[in-house]
């Protein structure tokens, strides 16, 4: 044992010595955190909003944060008040129903379920509370009985992805671009289809290399290491613009692109990721394909305030700015006019953007 103690002592000293020589993130201590707006319902406010978040919850830099931003807007611009509830991983529909009921008992007049997973639970709970209006972001009506007090936000991400494809095609020099998706299926498929169609609208000769992180399951949304490996392979193959639709895994793509140096680009998704990445990666974020969940939540709150609550499917596309492209960083300034031409054509219906990647060549 004496020898072990010696080894342990040396290890300890080494650890202490190492502590001294580390770098530090200057001025990055906890500060400037936004204060919470969802603190309780006020009887006087015109919109009493309750938000049930999806798995991932607030702070996911994407979907849920965007919904929260919508609530913030509603509070500051409409005088709304709000409450919130978080989800946990691997929940059943019964648990979601309980959460919605608990929120409903606190007396809101508008309840938002963030994510399509709430569709079934809302379908059960909504008829029991006819005076409350419901919104399911990305939702669908699971049966044929129409719920008069439920609205479903139907985003059209293929349209913003098409524009991202146009931007990629106008930017690429190697004539090879990439797409990284989380999992194949109805959620991510439209991103791939729209992007590919957009690239080929500029030049059919440009090669689009597409790959999904996993064939099934939700690991693909939280695996930056695998996303980085795939991105590196695409860069090795000569790709110089890569678009991702893979949630938090996207961080791996940004790292790979930033490490590859100047002239290599990544395209973000859902929110403006230029503002979310570390400073040294910012010069590589060409643009982001936006999905304005915040607009959806705000519009819903506004419609409730005006006494004409949204109901049924509400489309969010380029036309009503529900989806779009970000121009942060000014990397697309010289191409913006051409991108706007395509945006106009989609808005006018001249271009029908496909949603099924298997039907895009």
């Amino acid at each position, binding site marked *: *044992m004496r*020898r*072990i103690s010696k080894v342990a002592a040396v290890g300890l000293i080494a*650890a202490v010595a*190492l*502590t001294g*020589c*580390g*770098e*530090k*993130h200057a001025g*990055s201590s*906890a*500060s*400037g*955190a936004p204060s919470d707006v969802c603190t309780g319902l006020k009887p006087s406010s015109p919109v009493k909003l309750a938000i049930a978040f999806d798995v*991932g*919850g*607030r*702070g*996911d*830099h994407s979907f849920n*944060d965007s919904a929260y931003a919508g609530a913030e807007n509603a509070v500051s611009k409409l005088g709304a008040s709000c409450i919130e509830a978080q989800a946990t991983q691997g929940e059943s529909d019964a648990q979601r129903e309980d959460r919605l009921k608990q929120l409903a008992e606190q007396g809101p007049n508008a309840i938002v379920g963030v994510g399509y997973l709430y569709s079934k639970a809302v379908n059960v709970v909504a008829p029991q509370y006819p005076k409350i209006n419901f919104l399911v972001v990305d939702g669908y009506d699971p049966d044929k009985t129409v719920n008069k007090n439920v609205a479903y936000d139907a985003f059209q991400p293929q349209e913003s992805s098409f524009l991202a494809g146009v931007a990629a095609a106008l930017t690429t020099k190697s004539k090879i671009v990439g797409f990284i998706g989380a999992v*194949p299926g109805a959620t991510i498929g439209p991103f791939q289809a729209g992007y590919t169609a957009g690239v080929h609208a500029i030049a059919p000769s440009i090669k689009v290399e597409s*790959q*999904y992180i*996993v*064939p*099934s399951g939700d*690991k693909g949304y*939280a*695996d*930056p*290491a*695998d996303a*980085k*490996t*795939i991105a*590196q*392979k695409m860069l*090795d193959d000569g790709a110089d613009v890569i678009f991702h639709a893979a949630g*938090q895994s996207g*961080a*791996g793509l*940004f*790292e790979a692109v930033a490490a590859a140096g100047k002239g290599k680009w990544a395209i973000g998704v859902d929110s403006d990721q230029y*503002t*979310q*990445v*570390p*400073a*040294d*990666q910012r010069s590589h974020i060409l643009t982001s394909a936006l999905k304005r969940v915040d607009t959806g939540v705000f519009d819903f709150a506004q419609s409730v305030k005006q006494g004409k609550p949204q109901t049924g499917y509400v489309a969010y596309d380029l036309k009503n700015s529900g989806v779009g492209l970000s121009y942060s960083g000014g990397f697309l300034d010289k191409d913006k006019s051409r991108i706007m031409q395509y945006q106009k054509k989609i808005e006018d219906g001249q271009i029908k953007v496909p949603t099924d990647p298997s039907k895009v060549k």
Partner: protein
Amino acid sequence: MSTPTLERTRTAIGRRFLGLSPLTWVLILGGLTVVPFVRLVTDSAPLTATTTFTAAILSTCPIALAALGGVWSERAGVVNIGLEGQMLLGTWGAAYFNWYYGPWVGLAGGIALGMVGGLLHAIATITFGVDQIVSGVAINIIASGAVEFLSRAFFSRIPTNGGPRNLTGLFTLPTVRIPGLDDALSTLNGRHWFLVSDLAGFLEAFVADISVVSLLVIVLFVLSWWLLRRTTFGLRLRSCGESPAAAESLGVDVRRYKYVGVLVSGGLAGLGGAYLSTVATSTFNVGQTNGDGYIGLAAMIFGNWNPFGALGASALFGYADSLQLRSPVSLHALLLLLAIGLAALTAWRLWQRRFRAAITNGVIGVAFLLWFLFTNSIPSDLGGMTPYLVTLLVLSVASQSLRMPAADGQPYRKGSAG
């Protein structure tokens, strides 16, 4: 079946080298020659390209560290299902200490947090005699909740880079490049010569921009093997896993050695987690291990509770994983590889006169050969499963002589020696 004595004599031929049986060495050397052959026949260069090996090292290391952790713990007689949870704690610890104190302290932080998980497991199982599986599962559940809570508490207020569930832009650790040698090897790899180019591709991955942590992992394996196999300390630790009563009767402090084994185990798993969040990427997110701890546990079993066996099994998985990520097309070539491997195994079983095993292996081998000949690609749905399938298949046929430590998983109370 009819001649068990003959079987025993024939499998027992030869001496173990580095703790691996001759059969394992035959498989390894066979693989070394078969892979280049398959690469030539199927014309799929990615099979032995440097970039594939570089990616393979990145996906192997976390699994291998978890597997090595498993070896340490189970050699001391404690089953550590909690590896996954200790890795998870490591991902967070590494991120936190990396962010505030720099990359090296980050690694130490990952190890420390993993050791906290190990300590919890040690106290529960060794001091209080809790069932080791139950304690391990509990640690996995506690760790996933704790990591969620800790990142919400510490990362959500860091502007831009942070969030309640992630932290990006961590400091990177240095990489090593041996100038001259890597260019020479790269040229060789590009020539596509049989065996030579393939070996060059493999070696280049170790001299061109390899992370120092990856090299540290190799050192840790050699060190662990030496400590466990060649020192008095190792002998005593292993005796606690084989027969704690006998060890205690000879004056070994069983509980102390078990504590050491489990703590080292937790530390190694924690380093595996740190590798994921600060070496393979510079990004932490909640639930980053995605089951790597469990795969490490399986690799340890397939590796016959031996450090180098565990490393080999992890490397096999890492290789298949990197191939699947980097070059799904060349997965098809793996089918031929499997067919050849199974054919060799069939011959071996025939020589051993184990006819039933020979027939089973032969039939599976022919099936793979037919699959290879009559298709041009592997369906993409199967692609993601390839690492698991390959590992399972190769190791299930190679693992018929596994032996776990005799007292593994049994609680030990002081004074049982009587």
